[in-house]
């Protein structure tokens, strides 16, 4: 009752856990427990990751495009301004040309004044921009020179005396040349800045290309690890499952994605395959039981006959026999009944369905039990079974029922293959290094033809006549041995016989045995 309660609790707890971790692709109810780990991770689907990668690529490309548009606009503005600074220089130069004319021929002063005003107008209108480019102080100096020049020019117009004009002339020339050099510098600065911007603009395509390459590499890497890597992993899983390894898939990545869903589906499939495989194993065992029953029935007739004869004689001669003889006969009856019991129990043990229970087992005991099961079959086929156990061997890691089934299959196969007076030799030894105990089932029968040998472990492959064999014995046996962490090898030579070697992992470090 308590245990029932506990189990109930555990189940509800499990369900709560499943519900907690699966907000979005929630698997169907009754999801195998093995899948929980797959869903315990935070979810970032591959679709989300792809969308993120492409959004990021778009953002970077957009940023570079906007930047290049900005640079182009800036360059355009500069070019316009360059024109303005050129105009300014030309106006100053014109003003100075007319100033010289005036000094030489006393003509053109109004023209000089007009050009100067134009220049001042340009300075006024573009004051802010010029200030930004050359600095506020440079602008102030330019303005001051212009103002000074203006006033000197006005003064020059008023003076009629050439001597007085001579006083003004050097100052006028000084300011004039300053203005021109400033205008030239201003123009040069502008030209330099335009050149810089253009060279910057020229780099943009290269930058764009570099970013594009980085993004492409990133996306290629992403596809390789996230998608191709996942596909390769699942290809390996299918190979593993094909070999009969039905352990569930465990999470390999930090986040769960579409592949986690696939893994969950795989685990469901694995569970179903495992269930079907177990049914197959069970049905094959029942077939073996059917075969063994014939031998057991035969064997059972001996103690039954002994009991029958003894009991009948006891009844017949009850009045004439002495007590000692009667007791001896009763003891015979008891002993023969026990013998019957043993024969039946052995088969029932083998036939009984039981949960897999892996524990250390003494291989000699397993083989003795197995031989006892099949010995009647062998007797009926007039085949001898020999044992050759090399001891002491370390215990093997296994399930008694499974091992019985494996060796029943192998020995019955050997018996079936042998003509009368053939021999099946069952021998054991251990491998030197890797800690395996090996059981060899060797027959001196006709052998397996070379072209058939690679197929003998295939399910449903049989050489026996229609209906006599299921073709499952070896496939099921190999499946079980693999489940126990071992492997089966087959060797055969035409005319000499066949050896099946079953390698089972030993439970103890073999050095303990080899030294002891």
């Amino acid at each position, binding site marked *: 009752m308590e245990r029932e309660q506990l189990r109930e609790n555990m189940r509800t707890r499990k369900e709560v856990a499943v519900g907690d971790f699966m907000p979005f692709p929630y698997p169907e109810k009754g999801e195998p427990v093995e899948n929980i780990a797959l869903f315990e991770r935070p979810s970032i689907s591959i679709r989300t990751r792809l969308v993120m990668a492409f959004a990021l690529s778009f953002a970077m490309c957009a940023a570079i495009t906007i930047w290049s548009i900005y640079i182009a606009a800036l360059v355009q503005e500069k070019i316009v301004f360059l024109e303005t600074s050129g105009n300014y220089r030309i106006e100053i130069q014109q003003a100075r040309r007319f100033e010289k004319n005036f000094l030489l021929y006393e003509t053109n002063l109004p023209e000089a004044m007009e050009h100067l005003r134009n220049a001042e107008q340009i300075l006024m209108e573009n004051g802010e921009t010029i200030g930004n480019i050359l600095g506020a102080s440079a602008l102030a100096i330019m303005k001051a020179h212009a103002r000074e020049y203006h006033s000197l020019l006005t003064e020059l117009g008023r003076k009629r005396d050439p001597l007085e004009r001579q006083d003004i002339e050097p100052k006028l020339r000084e300011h004039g040349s300053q203005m021109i050099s400033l205008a030239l510098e201003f123009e040069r600065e502008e030209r330099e800045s335009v050149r810089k911007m253009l060279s910057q603009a020229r780099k943009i395509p290269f930058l764009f290309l570099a970013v594009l390459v980085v993004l492409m590499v990133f996306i290629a890497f992403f596809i390789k690890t996230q998608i191709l890597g996942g596909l390769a992993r699942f290809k390996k899983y299918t190979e593993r499952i094909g070999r009969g390894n039905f352990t569930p898939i465990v999470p390999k990545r930090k986040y769960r994605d579409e592949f986690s869903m696939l893994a969950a589906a795989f685990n469901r499939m694995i569970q179903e395959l495992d269930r079907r495989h177990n049914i197959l194993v069970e049905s094959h065992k029942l077939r073996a039981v059917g075969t063994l029953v*014939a031998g057991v029935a*035969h064997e059972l*007739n*001996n103690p039954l*006959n002994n009991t029958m*004869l003894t009991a*009948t004689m006891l009844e017949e001669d009850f009045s004439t026999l002495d007590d000692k003889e009667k007791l001896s006969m009763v003891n015979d009856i008891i002993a023969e009944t026990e013998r019957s019991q043993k024969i039946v129990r052995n088969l029932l043990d083998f036939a009984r369905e039981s949960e897999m229970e892996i524990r250390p087992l003494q291989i000699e005991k397993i083989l003795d039990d197995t031989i006892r099961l099949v010995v009647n079959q062998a*007797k009926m086929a007039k085949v001898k079974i020999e044992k050759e156990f090399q001891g002491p061997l370390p215990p093997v890691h296994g399930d008694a029922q499974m091992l019985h089934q494996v060796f029943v299959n192998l020995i019955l196969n050997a018996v079936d293959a042998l003509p009368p007076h053939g021999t099946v030799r069952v021998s054991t030894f251990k491998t030197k290094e890797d800690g395996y105990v090996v059981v060899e089932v060797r027959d001196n029968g006709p052998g397996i033809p070379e072209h058939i040998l690679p197929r003998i472990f295939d399910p449903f492959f049989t050489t026996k006549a229609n209906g006599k064999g299921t073709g499952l014995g070896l496939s099921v046996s190999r499946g079980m041995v693999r489940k126990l962490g071992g492997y089966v090898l087959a060797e055969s030579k035409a005319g000499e016989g066949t050896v099946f070697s079953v390698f089972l992992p030993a439970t103890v470090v073999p050095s303990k045995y080899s030294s002891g």
Partner: protein
Amino acid sequence: MEKKLRIMVIDDENIVGKRLKPALEKDGDTVETFEEPNKALERFGEAPFDIVVTDIRMDGIDGLEVLEQVLARSAKTKVIIITGYATVEVAREALAKGAFDFIAKPFKPGDLRAVIEKAAREIRA
């Protein structure tokens, strides 16, 4: 008084001989029991028996071989085969090879006595 019959019983089960010997001797016949077919055939070579009762499945030489060898030495001997697992094939084979009859395990001494009586009648006829 009818002539006593010499009966040989071969079965590798010790109890079979042990129980059949007194059961069959009640009719006054001579009964010798063997567990090993080899020794039985050796003895048969020394002095033939009128009736041989043999189990079919034994280590070494089986009942059918015993049947053949016995009949080869003494054609008028009646061989009765005991089978543990009565199949039509085995019975047919035994009869084809000249066995007088067969009886399936488990049987009562009375069943065997009836078969022996039938054989005895043929011998005396």
